[in-house]
């Protein structure tokens, strides 16, 4: 039996869906530096990302079920939208250096430490590659959501979206 792809079947957006939503930056933009990837593929009533962006780079408008639209030229990749998204669906990627950087929200205990080599996983939680933790940001404003940045080989910029939870026995 072949698995049907797409968010309603697999629980995460497919490559095809990601290519069609208005929240994703172009290849060229990713190569220029940090930029948000808003992986929000369903029209749900939600717009905190729009307000969280100090640069006006995210537009939801009315109705609030519109998919968030990214203005990739206004976005500086500051990452404030990551913790603001109640769906934890926003990531920031940077393809301008030798290695790729991926920032993602993380709400598990315990947190890794800066410099740790972590098991980086894809949208299905599968181990992709080891990656170094560059930053962990968790100001009070984020209300307990940590934003972690890992460094991974460039070919994994589009696949790595989190790290394995710590302190778990392998299943």
């Amino acid at each position, binding site marked *: 039996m072949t698995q049907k792809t797409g968010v309603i079947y697999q629980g995460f957006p497919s490559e095809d869906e990601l290519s069609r939503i208005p929240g994703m930056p172009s290849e060229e933009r990713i190569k220029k530096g940090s930029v948000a990837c808003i992986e929000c593929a369903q029209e749900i009533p939600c717009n905190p990302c729009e307000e969280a962006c100090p640069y006006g780079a995210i537009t939801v408008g009315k109705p609030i079920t519109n998919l968030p639209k990214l203005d990739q030229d206004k976005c500086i990749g500051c990452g404030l939208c990551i913790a603001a998204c109640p*769906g934890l669906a926003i990531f920031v990627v940077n393809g301008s250096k030798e290695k790729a950087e991926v920032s993602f929200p993380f709400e598990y205990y315990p947190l890794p430490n800066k410099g740790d080599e972590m098991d980086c996983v894809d949208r299905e939680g599968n181990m992709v590659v080891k990656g170094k933790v560059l930053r962990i940001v968790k100001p009070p404003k984020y209300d307990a959501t940590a934003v972690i940045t890992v460094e991974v080989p460039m070919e994994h910029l589009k696949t790595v979206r989190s790290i394995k939870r710590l302190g778990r026995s392998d299943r």
Partner: protein
Amino acid sequence: MKTTDIAVIGAGPAGLSCAVEAARAGAQVTVLDENLKPGGQLFKQIHKFFGSREHKAGIRGFRIGQQLLEETEKLGVEVLLDAAVYGIYEDRLIAYITDGKDHTIKAKKIVMATGASENALAFPGCTLPGVMGAGAAQTMINVNRVLPGQKIIMVGSGNVGLIVSYQLMQAGADVLALIEAAPKIGGYGVHAAKIRRAGVQIYTSTTIKEVLGEEKVEGVIAVNLDEKWQQVTGTEKHFNADTVCLAVGLSPLTELAWMAGCEFTFIPSLGGHVPIHDRNMETTLKGIYIAGDITGVEEASSAMEEGRLAGVACAESLEYYDENKALELKNQIWDRLDALRTGPFGEGRFTAKLKQLDARRQLA
């Protein structure tokens, strides 16, 4: 006998929002709740809410609960706890029990905001200790800070199943799998994506064949379903689980409304029989209003808006607001409610609520 302008039954998101709105208008409000703590199910919602700023989007549910409690206190709302309402009698006389003793209170207006309860699911082993409602598990981890188990099977992929799976992992448990009888995931994709990248597999077209164990859950056998929702022999999967959480929908808690004599309509997508109400949230009984999940199961954000609506409408009918002011406020609330009831997930509820309002018009 104790009297009040407005008696609100239920101190959850709908009831508290109603109380705040009515008290702000100047009404004397008494909230009754059977629990020892107010807040209903808001304090176990530790995720950030959806919606827009007016819906308190981006704020975690339990903080919204704290805000509501602070507002009720500031506005002088009386909150009676350990007050289990068991009957509503003629002339809006409410009977309740506190500390084992009978009490009554007479109100000019009553708002029933009694909420909903979780549905069960029948399968061999469904009564074993360790099989519980997903909301029950959520209460245990987020309010009582106790894990009901370590290795969880979640049944149902609506938002409750997805969110509670995530929160069980946040509390330190492992979710072995989420199974869903329908061929696709029911809840928001963003909630599903959170647990997927934590490595939780979501099996659609799958149900529980059997839960194993003598004294408690010691394993789960899941099985695939065909297009006709029949089990496919030979597709069984075994999970070494110690806990099964059921997130298979909720049913409105309507006993008081039945007893009071409200007229009902049957709308399956809202959870079954629901009291008929108008655009002021007033039932077919004059002076008796409803708000929140009792009117049809939605979520906390719309429950709070319905509560506000009932609060404004009660205040208006007691002449704390003139018609114009009330209309202005009610229109704002309806706009916010409509905003929550749009898009692929909201449309169905929008249509269902229209049907409920139509039932009122047909009676009139």
